[in-house]
């Protein structure tokens, strides 16, 4: 039996990725935000005895979409051989979404129609006659709740039936790859939809007030809404701080203890340079970075909860007025927040913007979004150098600065955009984030963080150890070492910023990935996970620390983000402009800060 390929299609935010995860056990990103999925993702599963490749597509508004994510879905449908389609609709909104299913039906592929979010449909008193719909459409129709796993078994059965039928029908090739443009959104479909709805669906005239409406009365209130926004932001960091920080402390104590009790004695028979490399290089460097893992994990947990709640769309609504004055719209603001996790998915998330120039402007400001890797650096410095009372406020100041610089950048470059594209998007209801899913998501993101940066971290600390210890015999990290010599060369650039020789070495490695920075400091200062804070505090004052953090916040985030910008903008020139802009802004900001506070 040949392998079958099945794609999930539907309008944005209907639960395609949720169903994809349910059916295949994969962990595609899910979020209560239209345009969460912006690229193809595949997974294998066994249906009956047949191997199926299931593809999750970005949402389509209709078959005439022109944003980048829609183009990707459309291109896939037009060019790839597909054995069957699973069309996912939001059952509550069947009145407007059924036309989409009928359009898809014109492609002539075997079809399964999924009416998802049955739980919400019941609550909203939307009644659907599934059997009648099935008969009228001539394809299996399943009423399910992908999020809670209700009805997914029926989907698998329907898949098996459809695949069996598809295989026994001899010639299916002719039905593949219909160019979508010939399927016009004609009045015939409109008439069909209306007739079908009249006999199969009953919706209440005007929806009753829901809990979403009540929450929004506060969160979208013209004045209170903005205040609520800041409190939500503050609350998030409070959670991350109060859960993550103690965990980090325990972990660093444990790693330090393991080093002195077990690892050092174990390595003592080895020659001195090798011991130093393994212990002062790899163990201290990688160990220090590892201690931040609990914080990163908590952070991602909280971020996915926000993404899954539906608040992102509210943020877009509240901030659109401000963003429109900078040539952008509310969605660009949401990308800034998504960038808190990692800048790469945020850069890719700009695919929902149709105007390519507006997309570029959005990509120009995303690198200023304070990602979790930079958060690590800031947590380290704020706890090491500032008092426990001051530390959270110092951290908050960087989030504020991150937005200010992003806004200022957009404001300066807004002239490049020309006419703005219209903003029109769904405002989904609030949805409860489910804990198991959140935990999975957080683990996955933290895992990606490790896999993505892991190689860089190990290689980075190894190279730094070499640079600080060679030529062999010099005092580590002294001006005579290789690192010291390099730092002397760059000193004229960094000294006016208060960033001394040793720190500038860490910054150079931070260009590759910010995750390396703290590990690099551990190796440079020759301190273990639990001592580093104290050593740094003895060596630099708060002004230098703040200036260093300011530079870290603003200069190029990492190679991965640059690669994403290059890929998405398809322009080397734009990528170089973006690098130059952020480095210059970083230098000027640190310079201005340090010169003013040391006056």
């Amino acid at each position, binding site marked *: 039996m040949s392998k079958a390929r099945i794609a999930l299609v539907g309008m944005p935010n209907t639960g395609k990725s949720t169903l994809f995860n349910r059916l295949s056990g994969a962990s595609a990103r899910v979020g209560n935000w239209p345009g969460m999925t912006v690229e193809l993702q595949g997974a294998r599963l066994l249906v009956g005895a047949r191997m199926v490749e299931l593809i999750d597509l970005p949402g389509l508004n209709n078959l005439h979409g022109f944003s980048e994510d829609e183009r990707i879905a459309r291109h896939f449908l037009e060019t790839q051989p597909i054995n069957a389609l699973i069309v996912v609709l939001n059952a509550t*909104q069947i009145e407007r979404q059924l036309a989409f299913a009928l359009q898809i039906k014109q492609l002539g592929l075997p079809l399964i129609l999924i009416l998802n979010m049955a739980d919400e449909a019941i609550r909203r008193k939307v009644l659907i006659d599934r059997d009648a719909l099935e008969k009228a459409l001539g394809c299996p129709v399943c009423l399910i709740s992908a999020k809670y796993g209700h009805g997914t078994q029926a989907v698998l059965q329907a898949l098996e039936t459809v695949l069996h039928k598809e295989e026994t029908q001899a010639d299916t090739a002719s039905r593949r790859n219909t160019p979508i443009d010939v399927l016009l959104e004609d009045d015939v479909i409109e008439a069909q939809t209306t007739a079908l709805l009249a006999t199969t669906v009953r919706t209440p005239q005007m929806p009753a007030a829901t809990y979403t409406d009540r929450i929004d009365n506060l969160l979208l209130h013209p*004045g209170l809404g903005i205040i609520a926004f800041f409190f939500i932001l503050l609350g998030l960091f409070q959670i991350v701080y109060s859960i993550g920080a103690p965990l980090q402390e325990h972990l660093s104590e444990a790693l330090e203890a393991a080093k002195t009790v077990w690892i050092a004695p174990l390595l003592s028979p080895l020659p001195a340079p090798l011991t130093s490399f393994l212990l002062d290089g790899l163990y201290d460097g990688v160990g220090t970075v590892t201690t931040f893992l609990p914080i990163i994990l908590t952070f991602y947990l909280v971020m996915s909860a926000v993404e899954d709640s539906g608040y992102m769309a509210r943020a877009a*609504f*509240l901030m659109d*007025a401000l963003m429109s004055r900078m040539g952008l719209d509310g969605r660009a603001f949401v990308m800034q927040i998504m960038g808190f996790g990692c800048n790469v998915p945020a850069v890719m998330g700009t695919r929902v913007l149709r105007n390519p120039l507006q997309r570029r402007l959005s990509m120009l400001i995303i690198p200023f979004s304070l990602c979790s890797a930079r958060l690590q650096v800031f947590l380290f410095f704020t706890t090491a150098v500032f008092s426990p009372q001051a530390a959270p406020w110092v951290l908050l100041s960087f989030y504020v600065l991150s937005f200010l610089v992003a806004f200022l950048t957009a404001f300066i470059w807004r002239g490049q955009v020309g006419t703005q594209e*219209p*903003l*029109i998007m769904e*405002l*989904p209801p609030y949805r409860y984030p489910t804990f198991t899913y959140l935990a999975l998501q957080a683990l996955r993101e933290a895992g990606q963080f490790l896999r993505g940066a892991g190689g860089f971290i190990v290689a980075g600390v190894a190279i730094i150890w070499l640079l600080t210890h060679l030529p062999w015999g010099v005092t580590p990290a002294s001006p005579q070492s290789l690192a010291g010599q390099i730092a002397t060369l760059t000193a004229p650039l960094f000294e006016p910023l208060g960033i001394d020789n040793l720190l500038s070495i860490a910054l150079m490695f931070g260009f590759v990935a910010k995750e390396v920075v703290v590990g690099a400091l551990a190796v440079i200062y020759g301190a273990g996970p639990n001592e580093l804070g104290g050593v740094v505090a003895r060596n630099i004052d708060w002004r230098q620390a703040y200036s260093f953090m300011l530079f870290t916040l603003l200069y190029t985030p990492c190679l991965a983000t640059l690669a994403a910008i290059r890929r998405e903008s398809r322009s080397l020139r734009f990528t170089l402009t973006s690098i130059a802009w952020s480095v210059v802004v970083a230098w000027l900001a640190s310079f201005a800060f340090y010169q003013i506070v040391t006056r």
Partner: protein
Amino acid sequence: MLMKPHDPVLTQLDQLPTGMIATVCYIEAQAEMVSRMRALGIKPGNPVSVVRSAPLSGPLQVRAGQTDIILRRAEAASIHVNPTF
């Protein structure tokens, strides 16, 4: 032309008072925009209402059937509606 007092009075969606229900009459926009609005449930014959508007002349929250939509005022102005009393 004389208007009888109970004649329907057309207005644009951005002018519609918050909370008042109206019926969409026609949309004066480019074909692509019209089809995107239709996909979200804003099309002639369907009921719409404005739930709230964002401060500083920000976008509107528009309700069309079971769907809530974020829409800027400029686009809302292209939607001509017939308020029902």
